[in-house]
């Protein structure tokens, strides 16, 4: 796992020993929802891959915007509008630093990964794909990195090629290289699998693709809550993230794109904000990033996401990694003591996601029973039906951990899964 320490976190790490410790109990108090009880039991929230909880500072930043300086951006000459514009643009710079992009205008605010992939598929894909061309994706993509490509491939009569994966849930790199040819116009890869937890070697894969002059889009939805991401180090051409998966609000995320590529691409949506001048004969478009931000954006969301980035900057990725790795190991070992339980996804490099099945019990039934014990996990295909197909299961149960989860919560999960056996015996 690439662990680039953030500036403020580096200071913390220097103070502590080689292995910085995370004070989980203190961290938990930052998250109002984690303090809740349901039916007299503490809420055990283990569905972080679906969405994460929000620290108070994020909630407050959104509230402060609406209460204190709500105005549309880039429009008014009045002070309030300027204040909102400044906050929105400051959030862009926070995101730029967060992924270590070279320039702020390489950060496009969008709804999230889904919209980011659609933007690239429609703007880049439709203009550069012709019949017979190929787009390479992997066997473990989320539907949001499959369906937009299918739509564009159908329209352009291009073809989707799939990098296969092993039974353990690792991509087959040899096969990957073999799939790239002169016909390949783009590679789109998930950084961390949401259903299996696999951390893919994207840096290596980007280098392989670039060896053939093929640009690469990385879906970082599940990476940014767990690790430092450096888009210049990865050298990827596009990187997408969703705010709600990294302790920020819903409905906001970013597409990072290399300026050179973004500049060459046509707008994705037309409307206000994205133009330089409009007349009925011809409209000229605004420069980056406005070209890709048609309409009034999610201003509060961008500010909230900026606050989430600030919050993460106050922590140490090393400490987060050590803690989550401990949870992953502990959860995997504890769950595997349950008779008939099988963990799916055993890649060497894994984020804190544990997908499992129980002999003779459908995942949906597991979900209902553990919910009764106050444990929230996800059950189903996790928007990765091809992964389920590949592993020969209709669905899995999935526990996904964030840095605020504890070993006690793993114990609660294990107790709850034992209940499943009691009910079904």
């Amino acid at each position, binding site marked *: 796992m690439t662990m680039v320490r953030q500036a403020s976190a580096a200071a913390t790490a220097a103070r502590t020993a080689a292995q910085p410790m995370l004070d989980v109990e203190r961290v938990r108090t930052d998250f109002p929802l984690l303090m809740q009880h349901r039916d007299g039991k503490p809420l055990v929230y283990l569905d972080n891959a679906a969405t994460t909880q929000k620290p108070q500072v994020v909630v407050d930043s959104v509230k402060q915007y609406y209460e204190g300086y709500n105005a549309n951006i880039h429009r008014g000459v009045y002070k309030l509008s300027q204040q909102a514009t400044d906050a929105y643009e400051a959030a862009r710079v926070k995101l730029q630093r967060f992924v270590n992009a070279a320039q702020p205008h390489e950060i496009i605010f969008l709804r999230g990964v889904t919209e980011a992939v659609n933007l690239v598929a429609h703007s880049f894909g439709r203009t550069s794909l012709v019949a017979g061309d190929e787009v390479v994706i992997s066997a473990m993509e989320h539907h949001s990195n499959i369906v937009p490509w299918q739509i564009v491939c159908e329209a352009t009569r291009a073809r989707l090629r799939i990098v296969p994966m092993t039974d353990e849930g690792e991509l087959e790199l040899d096969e990957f290289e073999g799939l790239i040819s002169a016909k390949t116009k783009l590679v789109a890869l998930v950084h961390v699998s949401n259903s299996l937890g696999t951390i893919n070697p994207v840096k290596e894969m980007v280098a392989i693709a670039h060896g053939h002059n093929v640009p690469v889009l990385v879906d970082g939805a599940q990476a940014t809550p767990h690790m430092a991401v450096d888009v210049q180090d990865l050298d990827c051409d596009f990187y997408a993230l969703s705010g709600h998966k990294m302790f920020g609000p819903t409905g906001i995320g970013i597409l990072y794109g290399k300026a050179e590529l973004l500049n060459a691409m046509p707008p994705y949506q037309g409307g206000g904000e994205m133009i330089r001048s409009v007349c009925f004969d011809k409209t000229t478009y605004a420069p980056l990033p406005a070209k890709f931000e048609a309409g009034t954006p999610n201003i509060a969301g961008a500010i909230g996401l900026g606050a989430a980035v600030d919050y993460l900057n106050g922590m140490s990725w090393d400490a987060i990694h050590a803690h989550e790795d401990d949870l992953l190991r502990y959860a995997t070992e504890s769950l595997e003591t349950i008779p008939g339980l099988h963990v799916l996804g055993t890649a060497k490099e894994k984020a804190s996601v544990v997908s499992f099945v129980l002999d003779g019990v459908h*995942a*949906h*039934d597991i979900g209902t029973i553990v919910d009764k014990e106050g444990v929230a996990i996800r059950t189903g295909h996790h928007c990765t039906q091809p992964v389920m197909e590949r592993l020969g299961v*209709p*669905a899995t149960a999935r526990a996904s951990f964030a840095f605020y989860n504890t070993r006690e919560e793993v114990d609660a999960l294990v107790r709850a899964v034992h*209940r499943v056996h009691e009910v*079904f015996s």
Partner: protein
Amino acid sequence: MADLKDLYQQIVLDHNRAPRNFKKIPNASHTAEGTNPLCGDDITLYVTVEGNVIKDVGFQGKGCAISQASASLMTSTVKGKTTEEAESLFRAFHDMVAGGPDAPADDKTLGKLAALAGVKRFPARVKCANLPWHTLHAALTGSDEPASTE
């Protein structure tokens, strides 16, 4: 765990473990496929109707305990009934499971289908219980579209 016991009654677990009429009927007069996109349940239903009587009915597929037990209970209940009777059972069943936590169940009409009454306290599971019935409805009305609980 009172609620869970209501949901997973012995008869439900039994029908899940050993589903009745789990078979393909090669020359069925009506077939339909049903899927529940949320949890990935899918079933195929085969019905042989003579006159307006359901002479035989079978299903295949995979899914959670609730959808499997519901399909098993449904097929054993509607066999020998007229198609109109089957449709009115569907209405009674739907009212029981989807009518909210206090929905009264018409036990006399529903018979052993009442074993699934506990579903009404688990809104996320209503679609699982209803899936086989939606599929039966699609088969009987000859709709070409796969039945879906969405």
